[in-house]
């Protein structure tokens, strides 16, 4: 949009010509003449962005009935403002307002008549819970803020708006709790958002990549969620949330590695059961990125660790397979990733067919054909299931990706290769920071109070002593 200013002309035609030119004679721009007290007048609006019923009822009908009243009194049912700057008017048009010009006056009316096509507030499909609130964010930031404020009715909850995008501006909302979030953190977030210079922003992925600390890490450094309760609980812990208009995803920062293993359900379950579930997830984490590597190392270097009966049964399974274990594993992992990606893009009903074709037909035929062994199918299937245990899709993808380098290391050096690979990964994790906070907290640096809510979940009375000591202040 142009940055030059232009005050409105006294003539209606001149004004409409200017606006039409500024919007390049787009076809959905509508004009309608409405005279008032004998003077010529005109309503201009973009029919795709406005509620035409609303204009009909609250703008056009009052004109035909109440010619004797003053102009401002006509629009009592609408929120409106008086402007003199034509470019402000154009901006208003793009936000769903309609403009009214009157011959001979230098001011014009901006009447707020936006169309409301909203998705209903429903539970996010990828973050369902058994117990707890079942609402989720939608594409309207105002609604999302409403959902957060419904959870946290506190004057300390603060929203700061930023505008991103030069060609197509969009609003970003930074939400935090004034007394809980660290001021330094707010400063870092603010400065990083202000530094973003983009022509357009469509999804939160853009903000995520432009604000994270290390773009070359495969680990996600911002948590994303579509759940208001999840967001609120983080806000009350001193985290900061970023909302983008038009995207139902909230970004929460600074993330820690363990926050990707926690779900709102953990706090709805009894604490022992929640701890057990977290422990299962931990096993899932270890399985998801080490099992194929361990298997490869075992069958190509360290067969002597297998118990005798297992030794013979695995050997029996492997005799007909012509490939080394690494190729076998890569082949099967690739097929699995293919099936996963294909299932993702298909409608639900066809998706089930993919499951049957992929899982049963290919799985069985590939062994019968002697391409891979049953033992490798067991390993890859277990790995796949374990990777779905991770609540966060992003972390799950990171872990799925991580196992390939580990598999190569295992096939080159056996168990030693795996331990070197793990060492490198942990060095990276220890070094990684998210908005100045260590990524592996509370494990490194070690914090016993924090550990109570990490691998296990202690009873709430033992982890939440007081809110004046939030996680981020440690």
């Amino acid at each position, binding site marked *: 949009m142009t940055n030059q200013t232009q005050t409105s002309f006294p003539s209606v035609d001149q004004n409409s010509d200017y606006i039409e030119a500024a919007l390049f004679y787009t076809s959905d721009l509508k004009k309608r003449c409405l005279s008032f007290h004998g003077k010529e007048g005109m309503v201009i609006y973009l029919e795709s962005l406005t509620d035409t019923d609303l204009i009909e009822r609250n703008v056009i009908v009052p004109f035909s009935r109440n010619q004797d009243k003053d102009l401002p009194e006509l629009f009592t049912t609408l929120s409106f403002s008086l402007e003199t700057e034509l470019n402000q008017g154009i901006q208003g048009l793009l936000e769903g307002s309609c403009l009214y010009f009157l011959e001979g006056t230098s001011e014009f009316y901006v009447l707020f008549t936006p169309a409301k096509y909203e998705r209903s507030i429903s539970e996010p499909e990828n973050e369902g819970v058994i117990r707890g609130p079942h609402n989720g964010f939608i594409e309207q930031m105002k609604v999302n803020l409403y959902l957060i404020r419904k959870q946290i009715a506190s004057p300390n909850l603060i929203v700061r708006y930023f505008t991103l995008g030069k060609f197509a501006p969009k609003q970003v909302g930074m939400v935090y709790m004034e007394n809980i979030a660290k001021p330094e953190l707010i400063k870092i977030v603010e400065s990083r958002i202000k530094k973003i210079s983009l022509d357009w922003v469509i999804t939160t992925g853009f903000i995520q990549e432009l604000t994270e600390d290390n773009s070359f890490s495969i680990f996600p450094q911002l948590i994303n969620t579509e759940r208001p309760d999840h967001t609120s609980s983080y806000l009350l812990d001193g985290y900061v949330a970023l909302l983008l208009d038009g995207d139902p995803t909230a970004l929460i920062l600074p993330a820690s590695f363990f926050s990707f293993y926690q779900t709102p359900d953990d706090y709805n379950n009894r604490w022992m059961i929640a701890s057990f579930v977290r422990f299962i997830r931990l096993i899932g984490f270890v399985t998801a990125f080490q099992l194929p590597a361990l298997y490869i190392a075992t069958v190509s270097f360290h067969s002597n660790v297998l118990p005798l009966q297992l030794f013979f049964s695995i050997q029996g399974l492997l005799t007909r397979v012509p490939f080394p274990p690494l190729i076998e594993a890569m082949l099967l992992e690739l097929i699995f990733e293919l099936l996963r990606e294909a299932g993702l893009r298909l409608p639900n009903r066809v998706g089930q067919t993919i499951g049957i074709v992929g899982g049963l037909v290919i799985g069985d035929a590939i062994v019968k054909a002697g391409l891979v062994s049953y033992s490798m199918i067991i390993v890859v299937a277990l790995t796949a299931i374990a990777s779905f245990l991770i609540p966060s899709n992003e972390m799950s993808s990171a872990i799925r990706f991580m196992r390939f380098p580990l598999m190569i290391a295992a096939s*080159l050096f056996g168990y030693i290769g795996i331990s070197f690979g793990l060492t490198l990964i942990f060095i990276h994790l220890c070094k990684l920071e998210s908005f100045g906070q260590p990524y592996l907290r509370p494990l490194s640096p070690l914090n016993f109070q924090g550990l109570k809510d990490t691998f296990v979940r202690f009873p709430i009375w033992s982890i939440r002593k007081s809110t004046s000591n939030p996680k981020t202040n440690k």
Partner: protein
Amino acid sequence: MRWRVKLGTFALSVLIILFPLSLTGCWDREYLKDLHLAYSVGFDLSENGMIKETVELIIPPDIEQKATTSEIHTSYGHNLRSASNEMRNRVRGNIRFLKNGFQLFGKSVAEHGLYSNLDVNFRDPTNPTSNVRVIIAEGNASDILEQKMVGELKIGEFITQKIVSLEEMSVFPKETLDTVFRFLKDPGQDFALPYIAIESNEIITKGLALFNDQYYSGMLNPDQSILLVLLKGQKGKNARFTKKIVLGYPDNIQEYITINVGLKKVKRKFKVSVSADESVEVNLELKLQAIVEEFPGERSLKEKDLQKINQALSEILTKEAESVVEEVQKANCDIFGVGRKLIAYHHNVWKEKNWSKDYRKVQFHPKVEVKIVDTGILE
């Protein structure tokens, strides 16, 4: 923190990632499917002084869900490795001893000294030692391995299971290649190994083979071996004795009683003392808590009877312990580690002794005390 990646660094890191990928058939990689497993192996001394090696090879099935099969092969060589290499010429290539369950030595080898035949196991780190049993065969080891199958079991599995379960019954002390190596290198302690034989196509337990240094020097029967294991301070899950006792009542009933002393704690006292004339005396005391497992007698076991039985059993077992010690001393096998004690606590005395001769002069005072603590649920 942003990384500033220079072209050179980038190219280098790509090369570092790509080069290992080209290193495929390298180092000590051994695919499981290519392994030919020798599960059990036996050695004999042939007439012309060559080592005769007998190996049980496990052949994986070519179709899944079928059982593995086994082959027995024999070869000759000047030592173990040369016999093994000769073996590799005869069978389907590289055989590996990864999951070796036991090594069986014929008596002829054991009489000529074990160490030279175990050397290869300790020198080559890829050979397993920690869970490999060493067994002595009365005749030829090859005769036993050539049985190939015992019922449904392969010979190797059969012998391993047999040894393990007899260890649990306290018939054999738990000796593996690791522990044997320690005793071979220790001048102050000797060892005893399981001793098996083949009799009318059945593999039976003969007892324990006693060793003096590395040479076979005598044997004990199974009943004596249990007592020896207990005297050594070891025990398995069970240790059973069946003894005939004479109850000293006017009617003089004789009964057989079976007791189990392995379920309760065994108290052992082992004291080596040197008297003024430098003669060595050993006090070996055992306090056993017994559970009566079978007593098909007419007399019910009352408190008064128990005392008599305790006394009778203590006497019998003490006598047997004396005979065990006598046998052990005759075989010149310092199984209890009297020499080790001397090295540790009476070093000057040890230095003056010629242990291979003086061990026989050691005065043993074994004493076994049995106390019945449980007579079962019958009463």
